[in-house]
């Protein structure tokens, strides 16, 4: 059903009865029903009144469709004549040609369709009235009766075992989906592993990634060394162990060190801190040697390496754990022990 535009309506003028219906005064009840404002007056487009304009719009739509056809042909031609090949340049050319062909093919259709609809198709507004959703009482009663008859027919009320079998099969079926989902989340629920790393007494500090041991005398003031524990590659899961055990080694003038986390944990101005941020575990490694600040690239947590790696800025809550180090008989840097607290971000079984 359609309604023709209601030209006589002027509900927005002051003093009009329809207009005053909308205003709610104190003590009055809410308006029961708004009057239908109808459609505004129809304004013809250029293509409606000028045949030349209509012809021009038609040509534009045809041109856009033609562009799409050309795009498709271009895509097919490019597919055969410009294979990706082996070099980066040929892959780039191939991708560019295919992409442009595809873009024109689809964009042409879309633009043509919208332009056609906007400039040439009928633009009179139309409305359709809503129908009542509720069926008649008779239809409802009939539908209910069909259901009742069906239940009666299946005998589900009388056949108790059948009912039980149906319910059990339906109730158990979801296990086939849920069980693998939960089972494959991870077979390893041993959280206490996060409390320990590979570091142990007399384990040598070595350079990441070459694995060369580090002589204390070779670390000059202002140096930064990215450190992994000796024998990392021979461990059972090198990447897992590396993710926990990476350490940043810094040497500064011993007079610059304001504090450290344990007595005698550094060696002659050489300090070693965990590289795993205590916020969400990014590798903290942007060291500024003049300020002794260590910046985390993810959320800009900043730690003062000269002052127990205390947080000076950013969302991290705790200082980076310090690795106690010393030197062995040959002058190589070794760990005194593992970290004295879990490294990285907080987790549910962390002690503090």
């Amino acid at each position, binding site marked *: 059903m359609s309604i023709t535009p209601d030209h006589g309506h002027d509900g927005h003028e002051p003093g009009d009865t329809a207009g005053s219906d909308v205003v709610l005064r104190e003590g009055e009840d809410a308006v029961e029903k708004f009057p239908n404002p109808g459609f505004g007056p129809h304004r013809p487009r250029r293509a409606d009144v000028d045949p030349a304009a209509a012809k021009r719009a038609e040509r534009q739509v045809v041109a856009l469709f033609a562009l799409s056809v050309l795009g498709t042909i271009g895509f097919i031609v490019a597919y055969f004549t410009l294979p990706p090949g082996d070099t980066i340049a040929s*892959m780039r050319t191939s991708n560019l040609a295919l992409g442009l062909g595809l873009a024109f093919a689809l964009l042409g259709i879309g633009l043509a369709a919208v332009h056609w609809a*906007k400039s040439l198709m009928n633009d009179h507004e139309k409305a359709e009235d809503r129908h009542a959703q509720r069926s008649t009482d008779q239809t409802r009663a009939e539908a209910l009766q069909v259901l009742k008859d069906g239940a009666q027919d299946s005998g589900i009320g009388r056949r108790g075992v059948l009912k039980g079998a149906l319910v059990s099969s339906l109730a158990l079926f979801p296990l086939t989906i849920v069980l693998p989902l939960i089972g494959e989340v991870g077979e390893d629920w041993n959280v206490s592993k996060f409390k320990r790393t590979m570091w142990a007494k007399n384990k040598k500090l070595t350079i990441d990634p070459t694995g060369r041991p580090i002589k204390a005398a*070779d670390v000059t*003031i202002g140096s930064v060394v990215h450190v992994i524990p000796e024998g990392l590659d021979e461990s059972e899961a090198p990447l897992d162990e590396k993710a926990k055990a990476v350490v940043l080694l810094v040497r500064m003038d011993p007079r610059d060190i304001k504090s450290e986390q344990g007595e005698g944990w550094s060696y002659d101005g050489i300090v070693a801190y965990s590289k795993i941020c205590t916020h969400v575990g990014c590798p903290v490694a942007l060291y500024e*040697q003049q300020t002794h600040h260590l910046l985390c690239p993810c959320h800009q947590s*900043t730690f003062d390496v000269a002052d127990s790696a205390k947080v000076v800025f950013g969302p991290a809550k705790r200082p980076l754990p310090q690795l106690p180090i010393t030197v062995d008989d040959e002058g190589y840097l070794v760990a005194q022990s593992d970290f004295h607290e879990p490294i990285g971000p907080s987790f549910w079984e962390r002690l503090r």
Partner: protein
Amino acid sequence: MKALAARRHDRRAPVVLLLLALLLTGALYAVLAPTSADAAPTAATADQVETGEKLFQANCATCHGPDATGREGIPSLVGVGAAAVDFQVGTGRMPMQMNGPQAPAKPAQFDEEQIAALAAYVASLGAGPAVPTAEQVDPALGDPASGMALFRTNCAMCHNAIGAGGALSEGKWAPNLWETTPTHVYEAMLTGPQSMPVFNDANLTSEEKRDIIAFLELQGNGAPGGITLGSLGPVSEGLWAWVVGMGLLIGAAVWIGARSS
């Protein structure tokens, strides 16, 4: 002129003017932008040391002191070596233009000979790292694959995964490395200028430094595909995706909803 005067109210005039202004700025920059000087290592002579001392007294002693021992907040140059001087003066960071969070690179103020003289003088004050030889910094002799692994571990956190540079704290930044000469890259690792830590030969051997230079050389030679947008990752890519991509989508929505004339 008459034709110009008649057309100056044309609605395309501002766009044309803007384009012309942009072109002019670009052309002027291309003509005026200086090229960085390349310093070649040479053996120091007594003559050089003498010339260097004169240059030092005239240009550097104001801050670093007549005996180059520095003072509060200004580093002593005794023992920094020729490499530090060649880097700092060769990249124009020194003499420093003004106080700030960081001394920026700018056109070198001295020519190669003068820099070599200054370096010879500072090297004579105390033993320090020397300017690397041409062979030590030749990218053709390095292994870029090994350089990538080393760069990723030691440099990428500040200088970005492919050396495009990045921000540090409180107004400091790690510069882009694509235009830096191999010698200056080597010297920076060796001496640790400004915020940068030191990577001496025990940490990164001379060959490993050359591998890093070879890796950087490849990164500076253009992107393998697509628009790099400064290679700064999600920030610049996100900005363009939002501004251009969303702009286009909004434009299309407006066009679809607009009434045909």
